[in-house]
């Protein structure tokens, strides 16, 4: 019924840029990011907050964007995987995922990277257990997680930095 109901104005900041867009009241943040803003790096994996493929940063916290109503984000700051890459240079987390072989089919990767970003912002030197707990809500069917955990640990301040 999205097309039948009046859309409402939403103004927020996405990847450092002020954005204003008209959205249906029931539209999720995931839908607005992917459909209206064409930020398709954020993935739909389940639509029910079970897989983490749609993880983005909302005001500093990692959220499943499929469970957030877009209109709740009025005035908020959103960071998506596209916002990590500056001037065509990979963010250190993105580079660590590439170098450690943490990417296979790649579908879970943007969500994994955003969840890792949130962890490292909050705790720059996580232990292995802390990394595992932080990524527990992000499913991956290809890698078996080992190389993802290794990639994040390589960025832990004071930790081992080698693959």
């Amino acid at each position, binding site marked *: *019924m*999205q*097309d039948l109901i009046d859309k409402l104005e939403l103004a927020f900041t996405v990847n450092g840029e002020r954005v204003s867009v008209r959205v249906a009241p029931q539209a999720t943040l995931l839908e607005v990011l*992917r459909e209206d803003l064409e*930020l*398709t*790096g*954020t*993935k*739909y*994996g*389940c*639509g*029910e907050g*079970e*897989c983490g*493929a749609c993880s983005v940063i909302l005001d500093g916290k990692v959220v499943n964007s499929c469970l957030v109503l877009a209109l709740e984000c009025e005035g908020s700051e959103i960071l*998506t*995987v*596209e916002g*990590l*890459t500056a001037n065509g240079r*990979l963010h250190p987390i*993105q*580079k660590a*995922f*590439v*170098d*450690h*072989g943490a*990417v*296979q*089919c*790649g*579908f*879970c*990767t*943007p969500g994994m*990277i955003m969840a890792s970003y949130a962890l490292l912002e909050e705790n720059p030197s996580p232990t292995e257990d802390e*990394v*595992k*707990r932080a*990524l*527990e*809500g*992000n*499913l*991956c*069917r*290809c*890698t*078996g*997680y*080992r*190389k*993802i*955990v290794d990639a994040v640990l390589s960025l832990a301040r004071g930790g081992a930095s080698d*693959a």
Partner: protein
Amino acid sequence: MPEPASDVAVEPGTEKKTLIGKRIPKLDAPEKATGLARYLEDLKLPRMLYGKILFAGRPHARILDIDTSAAKAMSGVRAVITASDIELVPFGYGRDNTALKKDKVTCVRDEVAAVAADTPQIAAQAIERIRVTYEDLPVVTSPEEALADGAPIIHSKVPDNTPFRYDYSHGDVERGIRESDVIVEDTYCLQRVAHCCLGTSGIIADFDAQGRLTVHSLTQVPFLYKHDLSRIVGIAPEKIRIIQPPIGGGFGSKLDVHPFEPICVFLARKTSRPVRLVFTREEEFLATPTRQPMVIHLKSGARKDGTFTFRDVGMTLDNGGHTSWGATTPWISMRTFSSLYRVPHVRQHVDVIYTNNIYACAFRGYGNPQATFALESQVDQLAAELGMDPLEIRLRNANQPGETTGQGMVLSTCGLKECLETAARNAGWKEKQSAVSGQRSALGATAKPPDRQSSIANHQSSVVRGIGMACLFHVGGGAKIYRSDGCGTMLKLDDFGGVTVLTGSSEIGQGSETVIAQMVAQELGLPLKNIQVINNDTSLTPWDVGVHASRTTFVAGNSAFRAAREARGKLLNAAAARLKKKPEELDLVEGNVVERPSGEPLESIGKIIRGLHFGRARNELIMTTHFYEPPSTPPDEKHMGNISPCYAFGTHVAEVEVDLDTGVVKVLKMCAAHDVGRVINRLGIEGQVEGGIAQGIGYCLCEELKVEAARVLNPTFTDYKLVTTTDLPELNISFVETRDPAGPYGAKGIGESPLIPVAPAIANAVFNATGVRITELPLTPERVLMKLNQARADRATSGDSPSTDAKRRKKG
């Protein structure tokens, strides 16, 4: 390092910098890590519509009427189709499926109608407004019901509900039974599991003005897919182009044409607009086929010294309401029963039976994880009967290089013994075996071999530890089930030393693109960044049979490196002429023609190519092609034959903790050793093994798509449990490099192998910890606790120690 027999298996410049065996990040990883990779659901074409399917939602019913008028009347709905609007061409392995169902539905996921609309929301609403009148029919929920007297007939062409039967034998099982000192017999039940690709299924169908069809497809077998789709939608194959965007996981799920694909083509044709159809997660669980569930009855024997004598296998497959590749998975189960370890007498009978359940397709391992669970559980049961160490009985019977198995498979190389020894050593097998054996008294059940004195002090703890192993046998270079198991490569060198590799093989996340680029770069002495691989467009790339049977590194690799070797020859000849040297005095290293053996650069490769292109005498470009057909043979009507040019082996040792109070099994450590011939990309191959172990742990401990009364009960990630980061055990991964003479640089396939032995290794470790043998997956806490309680109760009543449900017989 022993040199392989074949010259083609050796890379040039070995003594110098080699790319082979290095840790090479995947070439497509930056696209994926930045979110720039455009997956199917990220693609939008101008005027594109959104497709949606109405599924039956009931397992067995006659369709009396479909009223689409309300849906058609909706604004924004561009087409509504039912079976009466399309050609009903039967497809699937059993030719028992159609894109939309006409007269009756035979499982809940049957496709009944479909809509194309301006938005996904309108499409979803339109689906809800389609009214179907059904007459429900009696539902067949199991093979037993399907075979009962007077059972409903599911497909009229198959009145006995048994569409396929397979029989295999070698040797004389009766003789094997007579020669056995011990015989073990048991039944193993393997559940339905879902592929759970993180990217859901989808397709975009797009016609041009001349009726040519472009399909953006997630298929892992583009050329077979094109052929099959052509027949189903009635469009000549030469008018169909398949383009594969990045694929969010395959694992065998994309080996077939599924009904949603022709449905989307029909919607696009009807509307003359591009149509995209992408499943929700719930649809993915409900309407994509699973791994084939199996019930395996296995009887096997051994002599007193542990030598295997025979195996007698009976398998029953719930085929569900239609047939996809699941019905053919016994072809591969068979090869493990016939050929993992030396065994002179083997017989196998398989019945594939229609029910009204959902159906199954290919899934990593293709019937082998099921067979290996049964066989490797039973090998431990035989070892227990004989009082032998599970490692010893396996070593005694291990296949040897050079032997031909009972099913006619030639083991050109075989590292099974080395895999067993390596995994056991890394796991501390000998020490841990004896350390844990006494713990079983904690439960009260005893197991054979008889309890030894425990060295573990904490007898009263409710948590016990155990260690178990399992091996695997699998094809290592494809499986020739079609007339050709080949792959084509076209290779184009540009004026600046850049290379475009057009390969028929597909990238589904497994890393084939990188492996192929490595081989080409290695042959041509060029940096990896100079190599571009095009692997996703049937109008550009040459034929390939697809991503299955762990064949891509071997078959596509052989094809690519042979095309590159030919280009290398042309480059060296041109350089020799230009530099007034002999070709054998030159080498290609890091973008330069260098002098042998000094390695001194003489000229850049780009300059040599430009010299040919703009040359005065003769103008020439370097482009080569190679079609590699592996030297394997299709099986004969008795299933005999050397279907693969080489075979993969491996051993996993699992260490587990079992909580006797809760039934929770935790995998603490997994040591894996795989005979991979040769490691090409160490980073990639570790990823394959790690991912296979995680999928295998899920298969063993927590995954099950539950179907009751022919309906799926748990189509969400909340109720269908995948392993996650916190379930990750400590890993120890080793590679045994047997350097197969037919493999590119000696490599064999790896894709499926790492999943195959995981479940039996864990189940054997649970037995080792508790003395209780569980023959049904998954080993959920409920099931484990139930079995532990049953064992406690049996012991209390009989004073005996039935460590297993197996029927055992000893001969005097």
